[in-house]
């Protein structure tokens, strides 16, 4: 493999019927990258994510993970949805254990791994609660624990913190990076928030809408691990401004 890209998208397009959603997407991602996809509504960010996950096929072009189609490496990927998508009839521990259960992992091994994951996201005390008994932030942490339970090499996240208040979101952003120090994965992260994109990623891809095209690529040079104080760093604020400007340039004209 050597210098070859970990995930490679070559001239990927997607249309729904006659409506083009994404056009000519070229993207090369290295192992360990944290890539944020940002853009206005309708730019196809979520569609792009679903294609990388192998749950929606591209209309044209090719997506490869280590030279294989995404479906072939599904075992190494997990998806974190906009909602926590916990099964309401299962307790937290049993929700976190679902992917391992579906992989027919032995129950003892599964229990052990679930405890480990719940501990990682600080949810051990809530293990026996039902999803409705948790706050939005806790539900999202349970969803993350579930995703990390299979030790994914690629984690695809579709605006996972979009519905949370800013404080919970900042906290979860820091938690997410801390988790990545302990269980490294390559990340694709769809967001509407510029601050979130700059704080989390080393690469930001700005998409323009209808149809979605890559409008700008921004490198974020801060080394990991990153701490919350980074948000006050002048260089951080500079990148925030640069990304905001890039986003404004692709904004659809006001009607």
């Amino acid at each position, binding site marked *: 493999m050597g210098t070859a890209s970990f995930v490679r998208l070559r001239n990927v397009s997607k249309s729904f019927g006659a409506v083009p959603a994404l056009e000519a997407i070229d993207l090369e991602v290295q192992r360990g990258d944290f890539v944020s996809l940002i853009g206005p509504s309708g730019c196809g960010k979520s569609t792009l994510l*679903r294609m990388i*996950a192998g*749950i929606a096929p591209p209309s044209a072009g090719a997506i490869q993970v280590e030279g294989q189609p995404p479906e072939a490496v*599904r*075992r190494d*990927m*997990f*998806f974190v*949805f*906009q*909602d926590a*998508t916990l*099964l*309401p*009839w299962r307790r937290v521990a049993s929700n976190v254990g*679902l*992917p391992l*259960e*579906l*992989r027919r992992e032995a129950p003892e091994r599964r229990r052990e791994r679930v405890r480990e994951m719940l501990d990682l996201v600080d949810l051990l005390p809530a293990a026996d609660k*039902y*999803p*409705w008994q948790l706050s939005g932030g806790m539900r999202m942490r349970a969803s993350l624990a579930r995703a990390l339970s299979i030790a994914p090499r690629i984690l695809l996240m579709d605006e996972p913190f979009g519905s949370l208040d800013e404080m919970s979101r900042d906290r979860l952003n820091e938690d997410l990076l801390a988790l990545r120090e302990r269980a490294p994965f390559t990340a694709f992260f769809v967001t509407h928030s510029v601050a979130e994109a700059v704080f989390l990623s080393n690469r930001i891809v700005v998409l323009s809408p209808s149809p979605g095209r890559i409008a700008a690529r921004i490198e974020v040079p801060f080394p990991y691990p990153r701490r919350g104080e980074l948000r006050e760093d002048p260089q951080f604020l500079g990148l925030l401004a640069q990304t905001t400007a890039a986003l404004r340039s692709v904004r659809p004209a006001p009607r």
Partner: protein
Amino acid sequence: MNRLRQNTLPPLVAGGCALLIWYGIRWTTHLGPFLLPLPHEILEAAWRERHTLAEATAFTFAAAFLGFVAAAGIGFLLSLFLSWSVAFRRALMPFVLALQMTPVIILTPFLVLWMRQGLAPVVTITFIICFFPVVANTTFGFTAVDRNLVDLFQVCGASRFDELLRLRVPSALPHYLTALRIAASLAPIGAVTGDFLAGSAENSIGGLGFMTITYFAEAKTAELLAAGLTACLMGFIFVGGVHLLHWWALHAWHDSARRAE
């Protein structure tokens, strides 16, 4: 204590008013005990007929229970089948509807011809009456699964069987149990109606529906209403049982069974 009073007082007051009106009508009009039996006359009749009524109730309860269980079981399986593909639904749903639309009275002669009078046709009529709400609700439950959860199972690489067992069945459970609640309220009525239409006193005294015919023929109107009262009580027990099942299965997680925080 306060709660108890809030829950029991209003129905007691309403019931009391109804009794007053009932007695009031008898006292102020020329309706005699034959045309309008009074509540205490009905209770006296029920006591006089207790052995007959007990046996008839046992028969009707058995018929209602068997018909209900058959509708619950076969309805679940058919819904599962229907939810499997749109083509199945298109092919079969009109006929399920047709069975519901056809008046049971028209089917009864055939049932009697095929099965003779007795328990079998009564159970079948109960089944037919309970069947449709179970199929309609449960099929809806199986198909109305949260899209995001379907995606989640796909991401997990779940097989279709895993998806069914771990996602579709639990998702449909609240709909299924609601359907069972409706069916439970229909089952006693179905059994009494079925018995009225296809019951028999050949081997025993028949069910409550059959007793209705007997009492009416004998002009025993108080006994007739006593049979009605028994059927009504049986209905409450039936529905109460299924409500308990509903609560037991869903109270931990489902909104419908949870009190507001």
